[in-house]
């Protein structure tokens, strides 16, 4: 542990970990949630609701497979609709998990150690939700595997010059690397659970998942090297994923899409919504499981600051879009701006500006940054706002393009809504299971934050 690391861990006023903890108590406290704490009625009710919502999603998808995407509101000219809105929204939410686990690791922000595990879990579940949408949106979901370059009897290959194809590779790489990163982070903690478990079956399951980890110094050395390199790989990866997602739009010539500001502004928006989701999960979890000493006020404040900063980048993106609408002199770009402000979808656009730009400015107030209740609601507002942003980008740009004769309107149907809310249910169901079955805070990384972990040469 070098000097810099210690300074960030110990020298600031708000601690990253409450006082008085030892290796033993940190271990006991986190592993007890999984091993000994009985599941409460609240957990069963919450999981039950999330499970029913998941079933609703499966029902909606089942009906879609039977009937075709005509059950959705998508029609020409709006061929993308909710599926792409939700895809971009979910994949963006996932980005905060990788930012916390990889980028903050490289920047030696040790406060990340108590939130990286469940932020990574959030990433995985969000990417799983995101992945559903393009697959069911292709029209014949049972042929979605055509997206991958496999040697087929047809003899043709995918079209690699298309951003949609890049997206297939970016998202599947992202899902794989996120899963690997999460899994290797879990290995030492699985060993802890194996050694703490009372029931033989539990011991065998966690023992298998731990791969026989025994904490050898040589193993730790290679482990840390691999973890650090993986973080270094995940960092450009996460930035590339939303960049590629934005190429899906920016490479097209549709007014409102064809702009170079998209990649950075998509990445900032992704982190913005992702931190909002992290806070919406962390705030109730720390309260329910009594983890205020591990997920402290400092974590909430830092997350709020990240949201404030990325929110301003997003606001800058909106500003540039509006400016280019005027400055380019392109009448179609100018019309897109006018249409957003005054067209049939003006209400969602103004709501988006209020949710993403105006309301989050209250985060300048320190008192609100440290208030869990206020942060919870502001995060909710941001998540709604970011969803509206993707709705505006997808629907409003498509519904009125160059020729008035090809204008149209998009009205989501109940199947659109059921699928969307269903994925939220699936996401929450996965989170509910995660907090009961796996240590939601990285135990071994928490140990390194304790003063007794320090050694001198």
């Amino acid at each position: 542990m070098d000097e810099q690391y210690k300074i960030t861990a110990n020298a600031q006023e708000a601690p990253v970990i409450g006082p008085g903890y030892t290796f033993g108590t940190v271990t006991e406290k986190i592993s007890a949630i999984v091993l000994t704490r009985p599941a409460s009625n609240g957990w069963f009710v919450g999981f039950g609701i999330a499970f029913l919502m998941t079933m609703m999603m499966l029902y909606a998808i089942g009906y879609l497979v039977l009937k075709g995407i005509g059950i959705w509101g998508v029609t020409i000219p709006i061929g993308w609709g909710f599926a792409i809105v939700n895809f971009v929204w979910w994949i963006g939410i996932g980005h905060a998990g990788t930012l916390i686990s990889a980028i903050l690791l490289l920047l030696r922000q040790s406060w990340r150690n108590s939130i990286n595990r469940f932020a990574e879990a959030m990433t995985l579940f969000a990417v799983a939700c995101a992945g559903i949408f393009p697959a069911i949106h292709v029209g014949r979901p049972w042929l979605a595997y055509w997206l991958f370059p496999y040697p087929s009897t047809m003899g043709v290959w995918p079209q690699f010059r298309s951003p949609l194809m890049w997206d297939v590779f970016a998202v599947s790489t992202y899902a794989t690397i996120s899963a690997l990163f999460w899994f290797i982070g879990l290995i030492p903690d699985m060993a802890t659970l194996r050694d703490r478990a009372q029931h033989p079956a539990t011991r065998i399951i966690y023992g298998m998942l731990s791969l026989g980890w025994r904490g050898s110094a040589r193993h730790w050395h290679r482990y840390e090297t691999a973890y650090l390199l993986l973080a270094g790989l995940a960092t450009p990866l996460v930035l590339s994923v939303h960049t590629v997602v934005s190429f899906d739009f920016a490479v097209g010539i549709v007014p409102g899409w064809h702009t170079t500001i998209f990649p950075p502004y998509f990445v900032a928006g992704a982190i913005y919504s992702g931190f909002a989701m992290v806070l919406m999960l962390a705030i109730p979890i720390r309260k329910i499981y009594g983890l205020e000493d591990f997920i402290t006020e400092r974590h909430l404040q830092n997350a709020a600051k990240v949201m404030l900063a990325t929110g301003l980048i997003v606001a800058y993106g909106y500003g540039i879009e509006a400016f280019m609408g005027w400055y380019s002199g392109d009448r179609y770009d100018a019309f897109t701006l006018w249409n957003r402000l005054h067209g049939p979808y003006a209400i969602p656009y103004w709501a988006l500006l209020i949710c993403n730009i105006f309301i989050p400015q209250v985060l300048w107030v320190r008192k609100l940054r440290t208030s869990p209740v206020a942060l919870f609601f502001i995060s909710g507002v941001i998540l709604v706002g970011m969803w509206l942003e993707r709705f505006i980008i997808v629907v409003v740009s498509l519904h009125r393009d160059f020729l008035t004769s090809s204008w149209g309107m998009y009205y989501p149907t109940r199947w659109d809504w059921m699928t969307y809310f269903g994925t939220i249910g699936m996401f929450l169901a996965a989170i509910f299971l995660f907090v009961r079955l796996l240590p939601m805070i990285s135990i071994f990384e928490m140990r390194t934050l304790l003063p007794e972990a320090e050694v001198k040469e």
Partner: protein
Amino acid sequence: MKRERIYGIMAEFDSAQALIDAAKRTHEAGYNKIDAYSPFPIEGLAEELGFHRDEVPLVVLIGGIIGGLTGYLMQYWMSAVDYPLNIGGKPYHSWPAFIVITFEMTILFAGIFAVFGMLALNGLPMPYHPVFNVPRFALASKDRFFLIVFSSDPKYDPAGTRGFLAGLQPRSISEVPS
């Protein structure tokens, strides 16, 4: 006939500092086949045990090169050799469009090599290992620190090594049955 082979002698310590000091002294005393176990990574501990060659970065580099070449050559071969298709008048070998997937494949392969390379070099998964025979070793994943001298060490001798380890003031000493 009960013939118990000894895998090594293990000493238990209370703190990371005690373990790192003990590892240093044991290595300096001429023991080479030793290992240390801790509930979290300790900077510099592996070096004290005489571990200097970490091959993980090389494995990751190889993975990245394989991935990048695979990604680029796959696209080149599919788009320009096996089934050339004219897409909007672009060249068959339109390399700028191939960069994104080349990049993603580089990351994908490097990441997979990092994880599975690390596990393979560590000899994991290995559900059974003799050190698990020591009941107190369960604490190695919680708050205790262990140092072991393997019986395969040329300098190993049951009584002498035990005596040496006792001189390091450990909390306890146990024999690890093989």
